[in-house]
């Protein structure tokens, strides 16, 4: 278990102070895939580096399986880091070493005999599906292959935890999907607890169990992905979850509401029912289905008619039938993209 208690990180320059992290507390349970999402500059990369003390927090405690990192001697800290693998957006492979030697690297540091290290490296190459590339150099690999090697390398010392810092941000959508599948596999098969840092909601909803949303150096909300997805509370969470809905000031018309439904409720009758029961035409601004933890989640943004009587008929119907919805405030944020809606 990783416990972060009141973590602060303040960078001091001669003239000013900048808080990259402000009193952040999180608990990451064993066996889960935990996501941390936020826009760039929110502090998520700093936070993940506090977990293995690549960045020393200026305040608070990092406790991993009961041992507090700030109290460890340097040697103990280096040893503990072998239990926490890490992969990066830029892959960070050793360019002058072959794929096999890259994977052996952490084992060399740990003093594992060469033959054992190479045996382990070959097993891992098989796991990540690159057995034919052991003699290749990183420059001969594609981005996705490089990240696979980086994953194999991070897993070589059999860590309990794996930290992923924007690990898929430099990859195309197909490659991203296959790397995410690999990460899910590793989580299930090897029982590795994974912490994922990302700015992309699709990464969170395709593999994470729980998520923390970060904005300007603080965590604004934490919860199960399905929960946060269905009912984002903070402004930043709403923004991240509805990235497709860009700000369009010029859109006019009635109130917009967001409906969430999961795979168990069938959606098309719901929509038809609303229209039939209230006798009000509805405009669909946006709709999509997401797979969260193996369940289908749909979301739809509807625009209600401008006249308030029709609009309240729809709202009353939703309330009467216990259908959850959120009202999107008009103006600058969360306004549907009209051009997209028409298409």
């Amino acid at each position, binding site marked *: 278990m990783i416990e972060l208690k009141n973590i602060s990180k303040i960078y001091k320059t001669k003239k000013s102070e900048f808080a990259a992290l402000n009193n952040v507390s999180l608990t990451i349970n064993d066996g889960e895939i935990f996501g941390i999402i936020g826009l760039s500059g929110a502090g998520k990369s700093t936070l993940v580096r506090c977990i*293995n003390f690549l960045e020393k927090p200026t305040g608070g405690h990092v406790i991993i399986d009961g041992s507090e990192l700030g109290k460890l001697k340097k040697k103990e800290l*280096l040893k503990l880091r072998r239990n926490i693998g890490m992969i990066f957006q830029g892959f960070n492979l*050793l*360019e002058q070493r072959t794929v096999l030697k890259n994977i052996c690297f952490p084992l060399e*540091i740990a003093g594992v005999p060469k033959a054992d290290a190479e045996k382990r490296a070959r097993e891992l190459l098989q796991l990540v599906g690159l057995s034919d590339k052991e003699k290749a150099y990183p420059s001969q690999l594609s981005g996705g292959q490089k990240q696979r090697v980086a994953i194999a390398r991070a897993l070589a010392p059999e860590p309990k935890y794996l930290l992923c810092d924007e690990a898929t941000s430099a990859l195309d959508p197909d490659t991203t999907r296959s790397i995410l599948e690999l990460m899910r596999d590793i989580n299930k098969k090897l029982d590795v607890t994974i912490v994922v840092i990302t700015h992309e909601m699709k990464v969170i909803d395709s593999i994470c169990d729980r998520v923390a949303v970060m904005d300007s150096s603080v965590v604004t909300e934490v919860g199960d992905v399905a929960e946060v997805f269905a009912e984002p509370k903070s402004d930043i969470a709403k923004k991240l979850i509805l990235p497709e809905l860009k700000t369009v000031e010029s859109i006019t018309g009635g109130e917009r509401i967001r409906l969430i439904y999961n795979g168990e409720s069938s959606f098309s009758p719901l929509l038809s029912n609303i229209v039939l029961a209230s006798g009000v035409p509805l405009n669909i601004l946006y709709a999509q289905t997401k797979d969260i933890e193996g369940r289908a989640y749909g979301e739809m943004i509807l625009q209600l008619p401008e006249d308030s009587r029709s609009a309240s008929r729809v709202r009353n119907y939703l309330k009467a039938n216990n259908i959850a919805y959120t009202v999107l405030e008009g103006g600058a944020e969360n306004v549907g993209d009209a051009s997209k809606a028409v298409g």
Partner: protein
Amino acid sequence: MSEMLQKLWDNGILQLGIWETVYMTFISTFFAYLFGLPLGVLICVTSKDGIRPVTWLNRILDVLVNIFRSIPFIILMVAVLPAAKLIVGTSLGNKAMIVTLVLAAIPYVARMVESSVKEVDKGVIEAAQSMGASELDIIRKVLIPEAKPALIVGAVISLVTILGYSAMAGTIGGGGLGMIAITYGYQRFNSEIVWICVALTIIIVQLIQEFGMRIAGKTDKRTA
């Protein structure tokens, strides 16, 4: 061919000059790296964004290197002759020249090494740190191996520079092509000898450059 040139060749002076130049250059470069490589790495490692910042040490080394680098070689050479006497017991001849060359080249080599090692991707260093690598592990297994192609290119440039220095050593009692050009060419108004020495130097430099670059290219796995 002039009479003088013929005589120099027949007496083996020219051949010896070539050999002395090559041998002084390589031996001096070797020893300069023996001290300059650790010094360059140390400057890089202790710098503000290095893997183990030690500000005071870094500042001292940096200033020392700068002082020695800013003294013109021919003056530095004369200045370190007493040190040569202390180390090899004489201030004359090739042995003494090698000592002065090494002392003069160490700061230069240190800067070369520092700039090569600095080029190693910070992300790769961070990855090594995340695996629990100690500073020594990082120096031995990341910084030097990853900078190897750049270090070889640096060594080639250093060789050529030290070869130039070794010619200057001819003015204060060293051997080699520099000495021949000065003693038999310049001082006896025989420009042919000077030009022959220049041509021979050019050939040696070309060979070093060509071989060195080929080795550097072969070692670099980034362009495989």
